């Protein structure tokens, strides 16, 4: 090969670190008999009504591009849904329909961040905030969410991280990987710090429907926050529609308009079939969502109890579908723990460090699996702990 891509690739592309998730995926993929607790997507099938709506849209020939910002009917449905669920008022024009929540995150960061701008990223967190910030030559500022604070970010921590260059505060709650949530008083305290600054909040609420024993509240609903918040939502987790690749962003008009310009250039419009399906999801599927939440909730309680019983201190998460046990009692670090568990017991879980340095000492276990599957995996983890006792 005469082309030297080591030289040709852009510096920012070269500097991107392969994700910790990817590394574990490669290891686990070599073990066909391995059982996984590593997924970040629901096990439930997309509810039939939604699939049926998609099939119908194809039958009648809805196979063309939609408006760049998404079908008007879908944006109206999102508007109604945001109001019905979270008491937020957005007009159809304040909404852009995206290819998954991830595109909405990308758009928001690209629309706001100039080289040198700082983005406050509470960790552990979803893996895409940092690389996108870096690609736009922004500066990620990590703040560690601590176990003793139930993995919430505190207003004091945010205050301490703010500088004159702070552009965005990312809030990813309910949180992947910890399952932590922010309650009304946390949001109020954060709003108090942000009020009067020029900081925009990127509130990734993709797991909003998966809240246990409380109702999710958006920071956009706190006084003075709507004008500075972009709320990212999506269909993947709430309606079990990961493969449909559909999400959305709601926010202040000028910001959404800028995001739409970027979206027009690189995406055109989100997939049409998925958009028709999504209208049904928002309007007719409350019962399906409720049933999935009920099942997750049972598994959540099962996981917390089992893990604590086997000696892994596990915080009780109130959202998403992950538990985040503290594995330090094993004497191993996260990476070592997960690697050995995979090699010796063929159970795949994700080291906490894949979600930022603050994840050291923890591992992410997904409970998007049946109880039968969880039981067998936990049996193996208990065996593993027993065999490494006192090391």
């Amino acid at each position, binding site marked *: 090969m005469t082309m030297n891509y080591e030289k040709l690739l852009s510096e920012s592309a070269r500097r991107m670190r392969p*994700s910790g*998730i990817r590394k*574990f*995926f490669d290891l*686990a*993929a070599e073990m066909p008999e*391995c059982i*996984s607790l*590593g*997924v*970040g*997507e629901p*096990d439930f*099938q997309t509810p039939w009504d939604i699939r049926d709506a998609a099939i119908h849209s194809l039958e009648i020939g809805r196979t063309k591009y939609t408006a760049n910002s998404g079908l008007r009917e879908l944006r109206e449905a999102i508007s109604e849904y945001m109001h019905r669920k979270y008491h937020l008022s957005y007009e159809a024009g304040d909404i852009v329909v995206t290819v998954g929540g991830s595109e909405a995150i990308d758009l928001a960061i690209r629309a706001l961040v100039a080289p040198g701008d700082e983005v406050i990223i509470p960790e552990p967190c*979803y*893996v*895409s905030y940092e690389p996108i910030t870096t690609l736009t030559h922004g500066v990620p500022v990590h703040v560690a969410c601590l176990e003793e604070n139930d993995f919430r970010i505190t207003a004091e921590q945010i205050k301490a991280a703010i500088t004159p260059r702070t552009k965005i505060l990312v809030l990813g709650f309910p949180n*992947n990987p910890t399952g932590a949530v922010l309650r009304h008083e946390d949001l109020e305290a954060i709003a108090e710090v942000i009020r009067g600054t020029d900081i925009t909040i990127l509130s990734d609420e993709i797991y909003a429907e998966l809240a246990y024993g409380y109702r999710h509240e958006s920071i956009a609903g706190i006084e003075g926050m709507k004008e500075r918040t972009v709320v990212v939502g999506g269909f993947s987790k709430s309606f079990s529609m990961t493969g449909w690749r559909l999400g959305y962003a709601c926010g202040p008009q000028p910001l959404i308009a800028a995001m739409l310009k970027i979206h027009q250039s690189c995406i055109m419009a989100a997939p049409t079939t998925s958009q028709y399906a999504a209208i049904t999801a928002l309007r007719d599927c409350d019962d399906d969502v409720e049933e999935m939440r*009920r099942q997750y909730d*049972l*598994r959540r*309680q*099962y996981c917390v*109890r*089992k893990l604590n019983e086997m000696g892994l201190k596990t915080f009780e998460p109130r959202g998403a579908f992950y538990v985040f046990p503290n594995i330090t009692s094993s004497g191993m670090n996260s990476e070592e723990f997960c690697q050995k568990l995979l090699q010796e017991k063929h159970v*795949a879980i*994700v080291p906490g460090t894949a979600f930022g340095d603050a994840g050291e000492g923890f591992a992410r276990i997904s409970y998007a699996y049946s*109880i039968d599957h969880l*039981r067998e995996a936990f049996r193996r983890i208990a065996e593993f702990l027993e065999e490494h006792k006192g090391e």
Partner: protein
Amino acid sequence: MDAMKLLTLLADDPRASVTDLADILGESEEEVEKAKNDLEKNKIICGYHTVINWDKTNVEHVDAYIGVAAKPERGTGYDKIAERIARFPEVASLYLMSGTSEFLVSLNARTMREVADFVGAKLAPIEGVASTVTMFVLKKYKVNGVTMDLKEEIADDRMIISA
């Protein structure tokens, strides 16, 4: 102990072990066992059944639904006649219905002949039964929430690990 929660869990999976149920509910196994026994004793749980697709076996099997027109009796209404029908072991289920006939009887039998004999010799002669309409099941697509012979859905094709 939340008995209703236990009930929903058993409705989802009647074979769930007491250990799993206890872990999910955050209760002791003894408590779960006791609550389950109480539900059975009070006839809130009336039985645990297996859904079988007999068509996939060599066993001869015929299912029939029989609409039964009947006259109510003074004082007891439909209850007495219902009891007479329900006592026959061949009767799998019996409902009082709105619509054209009063009762709907379902029958699991081995042959059509058996069904005909039951209707002719046992059901129709019951005092108060005015007429019957027998419908044979030709093919089952879904039974008790379980689909049969439909295109199988993919079990789990998720990536092993994802963000």
